């Protein structure tokens, strides 16, 4: 079966972001960018399913600036077969992502879409569920396991109190949680091979969907800083501070 996965280009999660002084957003110039960690898990899952013989073809999609081609090449070095970039320099919000992906799914007809549960930049946690809704497909968000059997799949979801098992019909959209797998490192030979894999670039207009943002960002600020703390010498002093100063125990 064919699988579609998505890969978002984000600021490296280990980089400390800085708010722009004019409050219009965060500094992105000359900052290290990478594939969103949950998208990496999605790509890895698709590749493992292909290695297990469950999946025949992996199409990876990214939406954003021209540099997202690098993100797609990384996904192809991990094992995706071909890439599609919906190229736009404009802000793309989750509803627009879902609409663009729906147009691509309508054309590609995958049996399964695997997406990251959230992007670590806007922390929205919406696109996968929205895509499932627009397609009228079942969804399984935040999965830590998936087993495909014929026209359905059994999935394990991470929920607040533990784990939940669902059986879903295919086609479906699933979104990945941390413990689904540990993504592989890409090797140099695979990076070279990925350069020869097909990468199609399409403009939002060609998809025939309205991708304009619905939310206006009025300002972006730094959160309030916590006051400076106190270093304590030993456990005795710590307990005394908690009892007598902070009065929390």
């Amino acid at each position, binding site marked *: 079966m064919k699988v579609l996965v998505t890969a978002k280009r984000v600021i490296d*999660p*280990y980089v*400390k*972001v800085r708010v722009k002084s004019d409050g219009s957003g*965060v500094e992105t110039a000359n900052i290290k960018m990478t594939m969103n960690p*949950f998208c990496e898990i999605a790509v890895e899952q698709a590749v493992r399913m292909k290695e297990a013989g469950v999946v025949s073809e992996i199409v990876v999609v990214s939406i954003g600036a021209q540099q997202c081609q690098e993100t797609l090449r990384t996904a192809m070095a991990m094992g995706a077969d071909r890439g599609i970039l919906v190229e736009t320099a404009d802000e793309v*919000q*989750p*509803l627009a992502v879902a609409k663009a992906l729906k147009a691509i799914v309508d054309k590609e007809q995958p049996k399964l879409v695997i997406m990251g*549960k959230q992007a*670590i930049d*806007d*922390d*929205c*946690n*919406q696109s996968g*569920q*929205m895509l*499932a*809704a*627009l397609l009228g*497909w079942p*969804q399984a968000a*935040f999965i*830590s396991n998936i087993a495909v059997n014929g026209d359905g799949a*059994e999935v394990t979801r*991470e*929920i*607040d*109190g*533990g*784990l*939940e*098992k*669902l059986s*879903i*019909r295919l086609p*479906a959209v699933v979104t990945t*949680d*941390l*413990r689904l797998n540990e993504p592989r490192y890409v090797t140099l030979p695979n990076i070279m091979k990925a350069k020869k894999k097909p990468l199609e670039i399409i403009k939002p207009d060609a998809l025939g969907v309205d991708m304009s*943002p*619905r*939310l*206006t*960002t009025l*300002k*972006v*600020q*730094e*959160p309030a800083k*916590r006051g400076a*703390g*106190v*270093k*304590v010498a030993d456990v*005795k002093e710590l307990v005394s501070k*908690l009892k007598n100063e*902070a009065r*929390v125990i």
Partner: protein
Amino acid sequence: MAILVIAEHDNKQLRPGVTNTIAAAVKMGGDITVLVAGKQCADAAQAAAKIAGVAKVLLCEAPHYEGALAENIAALVLSIAGQYTHIVAPASGFGKNFMPRVAALLDVQQISDISAVESADTFVRPIYAGNALATVQSKDKIKVVTVRATGFDAAGAAAVAAPVENLAPVADSGLSKFIGQELSKSDRPELTAARIIVSGGRGMGSGENFKLLEALADKLGAAVGASRAAVDSGFVPNDYQVGQTGKIVAPDLYIAVGISGAIQHLAGMKDSKVIIAINKDPEAPIFAVANYWLVEDLFKAVPEFTRELSA
């Protein structure tokens, strides 16, 4: 202005966070209706009726609302969505799952995980793991909003209980089927409701060593949490995770043990009232957010801490 709040519950009781979500709805301004959907969940509906600010409770019971499948809950919300200006739910595993489905089918851009309400259409939400706060305005006709519970004080009790009305269920979508849940069993308080949390990181070294934290937690009546690194290393299950991609907590006291303080962990706990950190690395970034910190080997400090509390 009419606001629909979708309540999270276990059929008997409301989950922690629902009262905070209702408090956020009060700030948006308007009549608040709470929807309680589940399998035999009348007790939870009665509890919702007793929260200050609630004008009406809609109770919808059907076998296929067990497990709160996203497809079915979203379809039910959509069946009445047209009557409301705002649709609001907690930004918990429950709300995150079905709310984007509601938003997409209403052709609305959801506003996720708000930490403050500026006005009926303008909200503050953390981005980049809480390292920035964005103020966003929605132009959509219906606002679909999920609420970060720690951003709002819980709503109090109502003087008079609101009326509870029955709502007809929508047919089962048949798209997915609930098989079951395996919930972590613990006598300790829940992470998102605990007054005190003891959390461990990669420095714990193993799952076995979390027993040290459990002993301390039991002394304090605390919940036990963990950093993503500890979950990644397989020490504890994912539902222990505090951070950007786990649970967001703000207890009175947060005790971080063997946690270096990665950006994504700080995102989940830095709104705690008092933070203490125990780490042998004097350069650990966690110290920057701590009210009190102790540079010491946790395997010495934690048992001593537990003993000191018994003294």
